[in-house]
């Protein structure tokens, strides 16, 4: 097993190095890469749940929770620090994940997806309509926070947040990989293939899924806090169902068989959006939709599946 994943790990290391170095040469890439890394962290959470065979079509609720945690702090407490925002965003989301999780882990497949969607739409409606607290659809501005007490100019700040995102992404990537190889991670995957056997081994599948769900919510919260800091705003759209769809999209685009799929997918997604938005006015959604269709029809294992597929074709292709 560990022998087979090495090439992917190598690609992952190269990717993280590129995101550290490339923005030094093109400054507009700093924000682009920061966004890719932050969204990749969220999608790691989707990939975790996909291991258990469950698709959450409401995961944006945790993304929004992380983002609004940072935004509320800025609005009601004032000031703020990147480290504080990330920690608070992650913890608030994990707690929210525990509460929602207690309900949703009782269900599987379409019912799991539906209930997640329902919860996320409740959150979205509240963010949209509790105008007094949330500014409604306009969202809440997130002023540039400090980092461990140090303040930065906008030019420096985009690099600061890039490297914070990179650090968070690397830690999350490593943690998720360890988790997936651990007994708990293997049990999570066992839910997809044979939940009955898992129960007959004396393990509660719901409990295993709940832990996975909380971790996934935690990652969603961290990603949400980061994106809110990068884009300096949190809006209800962060929790809308299309955002949830986008995260599942990125997971399938990258490939859900390996944790790196999250970042491969996020890189592809954000780059297409970045360049299509710059060069082809208002067609990025169209282009991404077509890309997704092509991937699903011709490479259902996603971008990281392409290499394996090519390898297999070479091996067994007579």
């Amino acid at each position, binding site marked *: 097993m560990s022998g087979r994943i090495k090439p992917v790990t190598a690609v992952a290391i190269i990717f993280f190095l590129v995101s550290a170095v490339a923005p030094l040469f093109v400054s507009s890439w700093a924000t682009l890469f920061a966004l890719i890394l932050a969204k990749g962290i969220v999608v790691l959470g989707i990939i975790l749940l*996909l291991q258990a065979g469950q*698709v959450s*079509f409401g995961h944006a609720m945790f993304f929004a929770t992380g983002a609004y945690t940072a935004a509320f702090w800025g609005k009601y407490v004032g000031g703020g620090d990147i480290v504080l925002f990330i920690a608070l965003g992650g913890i608030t989301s994990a707690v929210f994940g525990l509460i929602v999780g207690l*309900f949703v882990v009782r*269900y599987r*497949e*379409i*019912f799991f*997806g*539906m*209930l997640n*969607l*329902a*919860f996320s*739409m*409740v959150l*979205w*409606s*509240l963010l*949209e*309509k*509790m*105008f007094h607290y949330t500014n409604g659809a306009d969202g809440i501005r997130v002023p540039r926070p400090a980092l461990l007490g140090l303040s930065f100019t906008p030019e420096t700040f985009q690099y600061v947040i890039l490297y914070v995102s990179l650090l968070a992404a690397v830690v999350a990537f490593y943690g998720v990989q360890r988790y997936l190889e651990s007994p708990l991670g293997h049990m999570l995957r066992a839910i997809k293939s044979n939940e009955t056997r898992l129960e007959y081994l004396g393990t509660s599948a719901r409990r295993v899924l709940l832990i996975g769900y909380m971790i996934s919510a935690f990652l969603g919260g961290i990603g949400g806090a980061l994106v809110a800091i990068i884009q300096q705003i949190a809006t209800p759209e962060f929790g*809308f*169902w*299309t955002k949830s*769809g986008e995260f*599942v*999209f990125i997971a*399938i685009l990258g490939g859900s068989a390996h944790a790196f799929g999250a970042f491969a997918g996020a890189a592809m997604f954000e780059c297409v959006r970045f360049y299509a938005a710059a060069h082809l006015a*208002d*067609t*990025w*959604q*169209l282009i*991404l*939709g*077509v890309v*997704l*269709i092509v991937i*699903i*029809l011709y490479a*259902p294992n996603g971008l990281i599946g392409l290499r394996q597929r090519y390898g297999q074709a070479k091996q067994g292709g007579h």
Partner: protein
Amino acid sequence: MNSTLAILAILDGISYAALVFLVSVGLSLIFGVLRVVNVAHGSLYAFGAYLAATFSLAVAPISPWLTYPALLAASIVIGVVCGGFIERFLLRPLSGQEDVLQLLITFAAFMIMDNLQRLIWGVQPIFAAEPLRLLPNVAVFGVSYTSYQVILLPGVALATLLGLRYFLRRTLSGAVILAVTEDREASTAIGIDAKRVYFVTFVIGASLAALGGALASPTTSLVPGMGADMIVLSFAVAATAGLGQIEGTALTALMIGLTRAFVIYLQPEFEVLVPYLLMVLVLLVRPFGLFGAVQVRKI
């Protein structure tokens, strides 16, 4: 709340429920047969609305009465062309694959249609209220309301409900659809062409979404995002009722429509919250929906 407002709320609720029912029942029908949640359903609704507006603005100068057939024509065109395309070229190649891929490819269709809609019809609101203005107002318990909304819309919804019931339970094609819904493998084994059934069902479901949009177009301004709002709402209705339940969808649409209408008059900021809160509560207690387990027979 006085009685006039209460009657207004009831009438609002009924006309809204009629539209929501048309869209939701299409979604439910598609899920019942193909086992796919069609994420592009809201886009079919939006396309139906925009094309209906385009058609009726085009024919209104000839004769305003032509706008009615224009609404119908628009929904059929969208149902057959867009719905047919999605089923034939996106869903069919994925039959037998993981559910998440089928769900996601309709999400891709949603993204594309959402973008196309902005490219074709722009982002400025479009109004085409001719069909609404053409019919006189009626007085219901002293409250004046457009007959388009309190008679025509509920009438079409009721006709759709009865028509679907008749089609599924009394005709051969309907029986074939039901057979595939109940046992896909057995029905293929006895020679039913499941592919054709899927195609026909999807086109019917898509046409119903488009019809909902076409009929809604005279009553509201058409804006980007209307499709994204409608898909979750219709999904909430269909899931609350129990996916695949036709009569249940009608009752749930009415319930949500009326609740929403009263909430708008009493506590307007909670308007959007109502259907989703209801969905959460119902699914927690009855994951198969309000009517899901009661009737053994799906659809």
